[in-house]
């Protein structure tokens, strides 16, 4: 990308004073520092304000440890399911034309545009004891809300579009010629997918999975409605931050926040690596 930038920048250079680019770059750096970098630095600053040992003690606190564990568990369940769904949806939508395709596309995108808190309320109205399925669930002794299933379901709702929206445009752009050739050569569906499609989409798939995972780890609004925030039971890491903050354990809250910030930074590095792989 820098190559093309050189060309155009060079073209503009003779007329443009050096002042304008410097000003714009300066402004961009300043605003990014103020709005993006400092908040992140601040989290670590507060997390380590009382020293390493306090930080370690806060992380090792059973409630926080369990929140880390639960959050990881939710992500480990959610991401593969959404990867499977993403592949299926992208295959159906990119390779076939059928009535209602546009509607399905919109439906898939809904979770991305509605507030997670609304998603939480939807789930409450569906699975709550007074909700649509509540009486049936109660009669069959199935606990969905205020337990792992509810947290996982809401997280799935919120993160469901991430893989599709990475894979679908790529599959459409690539077209289906290779796959059709494989069919002509007598390959089975599974073979086509593994040998032809998957190698083409793997980076987009991974990228979507990483974004999905990042979001699953960080989901707050939707999960807060259905969690019941039982300490050491149904508190995910973002909820634990809120809980610790309200426990007046501010250092603990920032310590928990710093683990999530660290995850975010890892995600960024992974993303950069994948983008360069994807070309």
């Amino acid at each position, binding site marked *: 990308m820098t190559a093309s930038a050189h060309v155009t920048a060079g073209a503009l250079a003779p007329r443009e004073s050096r002042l304008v680019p410097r000003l714009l770059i300066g402004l961009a750096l300043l605003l990014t520092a103020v709005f993006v970098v400092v908040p992140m630095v601040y989290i670590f600053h507060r997390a380590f304000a009382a020293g390493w040992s306090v930080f370690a003690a806060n992380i090792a606190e059973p409630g926080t*440890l369990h929140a880390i564990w639960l959050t990881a568990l939710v992500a480990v369940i959610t991401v593969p399911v959404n990867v499977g769904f993403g592949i299926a949806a992208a295959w159906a939508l990119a390779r076939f034309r059928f009535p209602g395709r546009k509607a399905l596309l919109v439906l898939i995108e809904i979770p991305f545009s509605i507030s997670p808190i609304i998603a939480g309320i939807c789930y409450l109205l569906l699975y709550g004891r007074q909700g649509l399925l509540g009486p049936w669930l109660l009669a069959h002794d199935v*606990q969905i809300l205020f337990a792992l299933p509810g947290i996982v379901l809401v997280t799935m709702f919120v993160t469901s579009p991430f893989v599709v929206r990475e894979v679908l445009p790529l599959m459409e752009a690539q077209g289906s010629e290779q796959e059709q050739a494989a069919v002509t050569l007598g390959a089975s569906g599974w073979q086509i997918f593994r040998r032809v499609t998957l190698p083409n989409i793997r980076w987009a798939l991974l990228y979507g999975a990483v974004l999905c995972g990042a979001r699953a780890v960080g989901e707050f609004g939707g999960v807060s409605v259905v969690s019941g925030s039982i300490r050491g039971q149904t508190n995910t890491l973002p909820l634990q931050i809120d*809980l610790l903050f309200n426990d007046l354990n501010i250092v603990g809250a920032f310590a928990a926040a710093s683990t999530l910030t660290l995850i975010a930074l890892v995600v960024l590095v992974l993303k950069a690596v994948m983008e360069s792989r994807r070309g």
Partner: protein
Amino acid sequence: MKTSLIAAVLSVGLAFPSFAQDKILNVSYDVARELFEQINPAFAAKWKADTGRDVTIDQSHGGSSKQARSILEGLPADVVTFNQVTDIDVLAKGGLLDADWRAAFPNEASPYYSLPAFLVRKDNPKGIKDWDDLVRDDVKSVFPNPKTSGNARYTYLAAYAFALEKYSGDQSQAQDFVKKLFANVPVFDTGGRAATTTFAEKEIGDVLITFEAETGGIAKQYADKGFVRVTPSLSVLAEFPVAVVEANAKKAGSEEVSKAYLGFLYSPEGQKILAENFYRVNDEAVKAEFAAGFPDVKLVTVEDVFGGWDKVTAEHFAEGGILDKLFVNQ
């Protein structure tokens, strides 16, 4: 270190105890966090001594009306420890426990009590002594949203009761008083603890109005900030009712341990922990021991001044009630 951390993560998450164990979920109000952190191990030790069985007590804290709603929606609480009878009545109406739950434990199922009191900044720069001072133009008060917090409803009622006495029972003057108090609140959090954070951490407002127990705990925790506790001349008796959520406890087979757990709050040991956490108790010996920490205050009850919770709910807290008039149209 690293491996032990991983092992700890796994053990917390994975290892379900291989032997039979009692387990209860106590769903509680927002500012009871520290209290039950001390009550629970004490009870667990006693339960072990009495029965030889281990017990795990899980906690969930939040605004008590919100908590009650979650239980109605299926939060599997075995016991509730709330700060208002109405929130347990709601559960009774939802069929989760008996309508006469107040008969199940001594003292109308209320093992301890407290009252709305004040916490002000170091050296009390605004000279806040009583409810009168809170309606001054230069005083900013912090307390939570009375729509979601039982704590704040007591504050509302206490201010109202104070004004009724001050204006010899004149309702419209009392309402103006409360309205003025509400107008001086810069922020309404949903739970009592969030209001405390606003006052103590974010340093907003001149006075925090919350349970006396919370003012004591916070003054102690933030000793370096030098907060001063102020007890107003008049306040409302805030009961802390408890109940076993029978429908859930029956299903989980935890009725016996649930009853014992709530009973423990009445025991001398439980009452002492309560008093140490700045709650007022009825046990005579404990009361005498901690008398110095609890200044005399004229306490009125919801029954005396407002004719009981049903009436107060209908007149004040229901949609379109007096609270709505004073609260929203500021």
